[in-house]
């Protein structure tokens, strides 16, 4: 059914097809009249069968037949024999329709409907399927139906697994068979079926199996998909784990009223400006979870149990599932020093998307110190005009290194739980790495390189807690650079992956991170002012990542990169100053993650491509247009009552209305004309400075 060339129609074929169309139209007219008048006579039902044999895509006809069946089954003289004959008739019609079009959704659905009535022999279905699946072994309709039949007749997963094996042996270029294999194995793992209790026993055999396909024909992609699934099964731990948090365990948090704090005894990592005396607590899990609330995560501050603490998921969609959760804790201004204890998962309820319970309760404790405000209003206004220009940065002083090093360690949560159980995962990955190095020594294949990069990345991620470094990051970067050259079609994908690996490398050790840490120093005043600025500029990043290591960052310079999206940036809850100058952001909606950054005051999005494209492609990049939230929260009344300029710029309104910015740079974008700027000023009344100009 695949790779067969289409023949151009001959004139006589066209004549035949027009005759067929005429016949079909006549049939259809007659059929609709029966249908509308609810006529279910034998003759009428037969006519619908004739119609379906010619055109199995006629959904109305299928529905009509369902009604007809119901009609017959409800007749008073209905008996088991007559039921059977009615349903057998249906199966026959479906079979004929499938002969005409094997991929008819309506026909397959109708068959399921008939079978679910429970009067027909299911054994027959398997025979029929065998015939169909021989004719077209990859057809996913048949495979879908097969799963339905196997379930109905309680055929064991093991038997079905054997069937996929036979199909794969007949022709391993069969996506559907490999896919069904992954479905069946998942079910067997979940059930903890005999012989499938331990993944470490099953997965090596599966790897062995897929290697045969990959080595025989590395260009065939069906096997690679299965390999990707196996890799996921190998690296993903079942139960979710807490990856990092802010504040870190054992750290000290200094809450200061002013932005300038000199001679602080505490690490700048944990000093935070807070007007209100509240600060965010961020929990970063290794996979998306739901059920984070004040009963699953308790926060004790002195004697205050904070039972009303509200945990919010931070994700692009509005789902209640996220990797990152945030709550805002307010410490009473009377306690200058207090200890906070966060206990995660001591009560059950945190569950991963795959349905596994968070099962490794952990405890974080940190100290909070409050430094009361010493407000000097003139100083404030100067200090708050921050310009992220090269001359204003100073390499972070050596003398401060020690304190950073301590703080850095506190960011990452060590998970000792999985170490012993994970040995097989290491072994499996090591074996795969060796295997694919061998493949690449034989042939230069893109997907082999990509897989090796993924394997090395996974290996590094798994060994990081013990090794404290990413051994293979250089090699992975090189592989992705290679791929970017080899496979231009997927250039952007490789670049995105490469960006993330690069960020992981930068954040993997104190030394490498320090090279990107700068002190912001105002050119006017000589005082060292504000927190550390992390500068990840000029790295040709196209995506952001490694957020779990960057939860502490308050000033971030991402200028002169190639970012098209800043997805995930919402995790950086402490951000107060962000430069995205000279990137490739194409739309206002790309800024959506920033809406969740409540502390953001200074934003530079100058020299991007906002407004270049009339169509906002960001919305299609999102995982699903349906889950995308832009606009869904818009308050209709608010929009209606606002003036015309706001209605015409609803995206700007939606994005910027929640911002609490003091300073915005937007120059160098197509959208940023004077008219638009005036709209922005209207949306953000608190804005003090726009494109370097002080506002009244």
């Amino acid at each position, binding site marked *: 059914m695949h790779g067969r060339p289409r023949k151009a129609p001959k004139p006589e074929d066209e004549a035949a097809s027009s005759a067929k169309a005429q016949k079909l139209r006549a049939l259809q007219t007659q059929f609709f009249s029966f249908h509308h008048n609810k006529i279910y006579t034998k003759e009428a039902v037969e006519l619908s069968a004739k119609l379906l044999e010619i055109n199995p895509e006629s959904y109305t006809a299928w529905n009509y037949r369902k009604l007809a069946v119901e009609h017959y089954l409800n007749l008073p003289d209905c008996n088991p024999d007559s039921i059977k004959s009615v349903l057998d008739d249906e199966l026959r019609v479906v079979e004929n329709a499938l002969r005409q079009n094997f991929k008819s959704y309506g026909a397959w659905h109708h068959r399921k409907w008939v079978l679910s009535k429970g009067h027909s022999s299911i054994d027959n279905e398997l025979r029929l399927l065998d015939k169909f699946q021989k004719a077209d072994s990859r057809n996913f309709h048949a495979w879908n139906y097969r799963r339905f039949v196997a379930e109905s007749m309680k055929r064991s997963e093991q038997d079905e697994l054997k069937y996929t094996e036979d199909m794969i042996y007949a022709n391993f270029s069969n996506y559907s068979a490999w896919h069904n294999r992954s479905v069946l194995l998942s079910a067997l793992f979940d059930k903890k079926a005999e012989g499938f209790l331990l993944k470490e026993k099953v997965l090596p055999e599966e790897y062995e199996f897929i290697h045969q396909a990959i080595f025989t024909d590395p260009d065939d992609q069906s096997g690679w998909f299965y390999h990707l699934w196996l890799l996921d099964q190998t690296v993903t731990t079942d139960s979710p784990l807490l990856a990092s948090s802010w504040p870190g365990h054992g750290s000290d948090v200094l809450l200061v009223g002013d932005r300038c704090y000199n001679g602080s005894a505490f690490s700048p990592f944990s000093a935070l400006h807070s007007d209100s005396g509240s600060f965010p607590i961020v929990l970063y899990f290794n996979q998306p979870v739901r059920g984070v609330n004040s009963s699953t995560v308790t926060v004790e501050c002195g004697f205050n149990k904070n039972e009303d603490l509200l945990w919010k998921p931070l994700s692009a969609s509005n789902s209640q599932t996220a990797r990152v959760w945030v709550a805002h804790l307010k410490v009473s201004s009377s306690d200058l020093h207090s200890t906070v204890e966060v206990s995660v998962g001591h009560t059950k309820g945190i569950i991963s998307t795959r349905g596994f319970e968070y099962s490794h309760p952990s405890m974080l404790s940190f100290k909070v110190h409050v430094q009361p405000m010493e407000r000097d209003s003139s100083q404030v206004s100067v200090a708050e005009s921050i310009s992220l220009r090269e001359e204003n940065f100073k390499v972070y002083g050596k003398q401060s290194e020690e304190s950073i090093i301590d703080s850095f360690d506190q960011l990452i949560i060590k998970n000792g739980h999985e170490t012993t159980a994970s040995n097989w995962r290491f072994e499996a990955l090591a074996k795969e790495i060796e295997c694919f190095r061998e493949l690449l020594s034989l*042939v230069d294949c893109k997907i082999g390189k990509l897989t090796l990069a993924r394997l090395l990345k996974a290996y590094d991620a798994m060994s990081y807690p013990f090794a404290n470094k990413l051994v293979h990051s250089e090699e992975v970067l090189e592989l992705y650079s290679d791929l970017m050259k080899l496979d231009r079609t997927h250039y952007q994908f490789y670049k995105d992956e490469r960006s993330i690996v690069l960020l992981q490398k930068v954040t993997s050790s104190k030394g490498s991170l320090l090279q990107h840490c700068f002190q912001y120093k105002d050119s006017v005043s000589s005082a060292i002012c504000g927190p550390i600025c992390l500068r990840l500029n000029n790295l040709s990043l196209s995506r952001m990542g490694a957020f779990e290591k960057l939860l502490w960052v308050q000033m971030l310079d991402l200028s002169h990169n190639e970012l098209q999206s800043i997805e995930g940036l919402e995790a950086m809850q402490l951000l107060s100053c962000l430069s995205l100058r000279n990137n490739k952001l194409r739309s206002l909606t790309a800024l959506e993650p920033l809406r969740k950054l409540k502390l953001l005051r200074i934003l530079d999005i100058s020299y991007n491509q906002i407004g270049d494209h009339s169509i906002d492609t960001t919305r299609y990049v999102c995982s699903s247009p349906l889950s995308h939230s832009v606009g869904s929260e818009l308050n209709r009344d608010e929009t209606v009552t606002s003036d015309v300029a706001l209605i015409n710029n609803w995206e700007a309104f939606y994005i910027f209305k929640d911002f609490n910015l003091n300073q915005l740079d937007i120059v160098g974008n197509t959208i940023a004309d004077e008219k638009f700027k005036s709209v922005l000023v209207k949306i953000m009344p608190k804005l003090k400075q726009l494109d370097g100009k002080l506002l009244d």
Partner: protein
Amino acid sequence: MDDIPPYPPIDPTTFDLIVIGTGLPESIIAAAASTASKSVLHLDPNPFYGSHFSSLPLADLPSFLSSHSTSPSPPRSPSSDDPNEFSLLEFATRPLYSSIDISTFSPNLDQHSRKFNLDVAGPRVLFCADKSIELLLRTGTNQYMEFKSVDATFVGDNKGNLWSVPDSRAAIFKDKSLGLVEKNKLMRFFKLVQGHLAGEQDVKISEEDLQSPFVDFLNKMGLPPKIKSFILYAIAMADYDQEDTGVCRDLLKTKDGIDQLALYNASIGRFQNASGAFLYPIYGQGELSQAFCRRAAVKGCLYVLRMPVTALLVDKDTGCYKGVRLASGQDIFSQKLILDPTFKVTLPLGSSPPLPLKEKLPFFSLKDDKGKIARGICITKTSLKPDISNFLVVYPPRSLFPEQVTSIRLLQIASNLAVCLPGMFVLYISALCNDDDQGKKLIHAVMNTLLTVPLDSESNAAVQSETAEIGSAVQDETSESSSGGPSDSGEEKPTLLWSALYSQELTLGQVDFICSTPMPDGKLNYNDLIDTTFKIFQEIYPEEEFFPETSLENPEVDGDASPET
């Protein structure tokens, strides 16, 4: 002499063409000539069709072989010149078979002699996409025959193991004996060949490579020895050791190797219900000759079996061929004559042939510088491999013993092809050789590796002594096979019930005003024979088309040719 004449006279007495012998080449020529509207008389001294290509009952095979093994008695009388204008040159037959060795270990097989159809020229198969299948389809001859698939090809070793030949993508994937790297290399090689054949520009094999020896090309591709051996001997079906130029009489060029691969590749999956690359006719290979005879008969060819021919009639003055004298005494005349290669013309002692004939004579003395082929037929009660009944086994050169310079092929055919009693298996073995002793040694080496030869037979001693000779080379390996081969270990080797071993001369077809057809060759299929047959036909009828294409005669041929399920 004055009895009722055993042969009714043939009428008419003049034909365009007389064909003597009903072997496959003769039968095809008879059918082709008849199709070209020639009047043809097709004679055979035997009471059956097929001559040296026939399939015979068990009891008839030994007598057929021995009847062609001794030189016939010298001419009964010096050829007396007829009163008319012809000279008579008497026919004699050349011995074709030698060192015939029949062993029976199961006395009651003879009672079921007719249940057996043993190929005289085995082992032989048809590739699903080879010239014989094309010819069958084009001529509609397939309607007289049915085929079944030969399901697999194995490579054997001296321990009795049979390794399946990874001959397709699915087979490579499934194969348990190849490592991952080997799989990758082999598949890439297949893809290269496919790309080359499909004319893809970027995968073209250079002309220089095409003219180089195939084995050098395989080395250049970095294929490991095991895979090289698979490709050379089990797919390209090379006869001689390609890596020893000293003994290799037929060094395969890359071009030809690739053609062989293409043929093999096109054969796999050509017919839906044939899983392997080969077909085998139900009732044996003899059916092919018979089918072409039927095809010829439909077109008006006249058939007379049991009709020996005694002499050639030549014009006294010109020495030109005129006709033949039959055993019945009748003289039949024709313009052209096609002879089975076993016939030769003897000249009267002391007399010299007429001048013009003298010049023509050299072609009568057929030379056999192509060596010999050793053949063996074995009957067993158990398959060499469980769960599979019809398959081919190749023993590449040096796989059984160091001095083995040619590949040995073995074809197992089961009773579902109606060649033997139900539950039995016929094994056909063949190998090219220089002389009878070498040939025997090759056949015995395979038999000893795969079969248990019982001790209670009259000809047993002979077999045993042969065994002892080669024993020194293979004894130690074969003794291991009972302990630890992965495939057939633990299972008893099939016991030999009956065997026939013989050597056959190899002669090529000759073309002149009298033509000799080729003998069964050492190949696995009929491709070369059909080529030669075609050339002979062109030589005698340069004006005529060899089976012209007719759309009416072969409707839906593909369906008919596919073997029954």
